[in-house]
């Protein structure tokens, strides 16, 4: 076991994956010698050569199109999109190509083994082009897997599972936590399941659900609630597509209440999908309406970032409102 931050955990996962399997390649903008804008790929080019870890031209559609071709050829590309805000030029390649390769060819061709890593989310004073959480666009696309780790242990295990997965994965890394989240991490090779939510804390009064960087606020809010005598069950969804309905439903059947929090705008956010499913499966057990604490339906602000973020205080307020419905 070794103390490391989320970024170091990602780097270690990539190192292990490239070590074990010569078909794993890491590429993207600045990821070569420089090690990527956040240094997630540091040292990989030195260890594995310029053929397997390299810079590409600045072309997100090119990077993902190229990765599609490589993966269809049977290799395992781990492509970095420098910021999730810049994933949109690659949207067509991801949604029309990556997601549908297997389906449209009757499983003659697929791009399993493809992973797109991309830092997402706010809290770094990045304004509206360095802070977006675009997961909802992708969870609407059958054929993709969408994974978001909340800390170093999860980042390493989920990323290794993503690289080994026979389906293409978009791996959103919470950049606010890159250096802030530190934990004891197993230095060996391990995978965490891609289709399981994790019950991070057990409780009996209300279920709190989030993923990625938002888990940090959720746990702080659960502490505030605990001090106020409210017992929160806290769940990290981890995999957004496909998502682990059963773990969430089971928890809500027990607590009778659900609060979902995400940083992305409220309207059309993934919280809406979860709320719809849970009310369908738990209707007679619900003791209050399902609460959503989310970003506003605005571009991500710069100056008012702290007000925009659905932080522990806004979540705690919503917990109280739900408990007193």
């Amino acid at each position, binding site marked *: 076991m070794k103390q490391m931050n989320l970024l170091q955990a990602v780097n270690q996962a990539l190192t292990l994956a490239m070590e074990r399997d010569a078909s794993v390649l890491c590429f993207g903008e600045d990821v070569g010698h420089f090690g990527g804008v956040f240094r997630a790929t540091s040292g990989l080019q030195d260890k594995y050569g310029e053929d397997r870890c390299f810079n590409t031209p600045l072309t997100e559609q*090119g990077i993902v199109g190229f990765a599609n071709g490589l*993966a269809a050829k049977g290799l395992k590309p781990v492509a970095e999109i420098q910021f999730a805000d810049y994933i949109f030029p690659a949207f067509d390649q991801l949604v029309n*190509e990556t997601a549908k390769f297997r389906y*449209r060819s009757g499983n003659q061709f697929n791009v399993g083994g493809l992973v797109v890593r991309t830092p997402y989310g706010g809290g770094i004073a990045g304004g509206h082009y360095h802070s977006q959480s675009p997961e909802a666009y992708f969870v609407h696309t059958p054929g993709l897997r969408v994974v978001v780790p909340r800390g170093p242990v999860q980042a390493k295990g989920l990323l290794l599972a993503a690289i080994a997965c026979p389906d293409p994965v978009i791996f959103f890394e919470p950049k606010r936590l890159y250096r802030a989240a530190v934990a004891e991490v197993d230095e060996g090779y391990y995978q965490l399941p891609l289709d399981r939510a994790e019950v991070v804390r057990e409780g009996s009064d209300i279920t709190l659900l989030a993923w990625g960087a938002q888990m940090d606020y959720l746990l702080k809010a659960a502490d505030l609630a605990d001090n106020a005598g409210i017992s929160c069950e806290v769940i990290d969804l981890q995999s957004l597509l*496909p998502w682990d*309905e059963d773990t969430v439903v089971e928890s809500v059947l027990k607590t009778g209440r659900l609060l979902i929090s995400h940083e992305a705008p409220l309207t059309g956010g993934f919280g809406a999908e979860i709320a719809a499913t849970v009310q369908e499966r738990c209707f007679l057990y619900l003791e209050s309406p399902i609460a959503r604490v989310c970003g506003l339906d605005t571009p991500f602000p710069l100056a008012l970032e702290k007000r925009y973020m659905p932080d522990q205080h806004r979540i705690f307020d919503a917990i109280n409102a739900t408990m007193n419905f």
Partner: protein
Amino acid sequence: MTNPNNATITLVHRIRFVDGHGLTIPTFRLLKDDGHLYADAIAPELDKEQALAMYHSMVATRLLDERMLAAQRQGRISFYLQSLGEEAQAVASAAALAPEDMILAQYREQGALLHRGFTLAQFMSQLFSNEDDLGKGRQMPVHYGCRELNFMTISSPLATQIPQATGVAYGQRLAGESAITLCYFGEGAASEGDFHAGLNMAAVLKTPVIFFCRNNGYAISTPASEQFVGDGIASRAVGYGIRTLRVDGADTLAVFEATRQARQLMLDDPQPMLIEAMSYRLGAHSSSDDPSGYRSQAEEERWRKRDPIGRYRLWLQHQGWLNEDDDRRHRDELRRQILEAMKQAEQRAKPALESLVEDVYAAVPRHLERQLAGLKHPSSGRQGEDA
């Protein structure tokens, strides 16, 4: 003097804007319209068997197109794309490849797939979306694909295969395979961002991929004159540092030789190449299109006289490799086979309901199992119910 990119810099002290006039790229052609070689032209090394195989693939492509366009008009299939006037470029370029070379196509290269050995039954299964379709009936007609023949399944969105071809070729290079990738697209697709992204990456990463542009004059109803300015698509590749050749796309021998030599060059020295084949899309863009709204009969007639199959047939006759009786008998037999394959495919069942949720992921996930069960037993209530 060189800049950091190792490009030579020439200094001048008077303004001189550079334009395309100095960059006009010539067109490689071997066969004259009468089927004889130009005086200084050298025919590619082709034996009778190979030469006739190409001819038969072109003829079969045309007959298949004719029949299926008629089938579309009869309402038997929903859509069709013919390659009338472009048979030579697809067939002759594919003929210059080895079977292990990968092909990523657009949607007008049925000739390449046919030449690789895709059977009439396989074509028909795709066109009729029956249970034998390798793509399991999920795509519109003409979106073929065949793993066994190294022919990647076609996607509708334009130009997406171009950066993918760069990736496939990089994988081939990395694996040390002596194989290359050939990527077809039209001149309209060269306007897409994916074209520029794919070419630039290929040049920088030195991948063995042939970008084969079928410059056929029209992108649906938009003429090439409204698609790009300057010297065609070839000059764009030059700008990316990619070796480039322009060829007469209606000259079977020239297309074959151009592709053969491009392939040989990149096997010895991994790098991309672009071949711009100049031709004319004699038919409509698709069965949903009517060219009479945007071009004249006279224009079409001019090109009809330059039919690539006709020119090649004359060469084969001059070689003493083809006579009219054999040709006619062969065509009649092909027509019969096509009709028979169509009747067979039409009668086959549609894919099973289960296939709806298959291949979305490697294994069918729980939520899709639930949704399928809901579809099978609608009376059970909600869409996501367990069976």
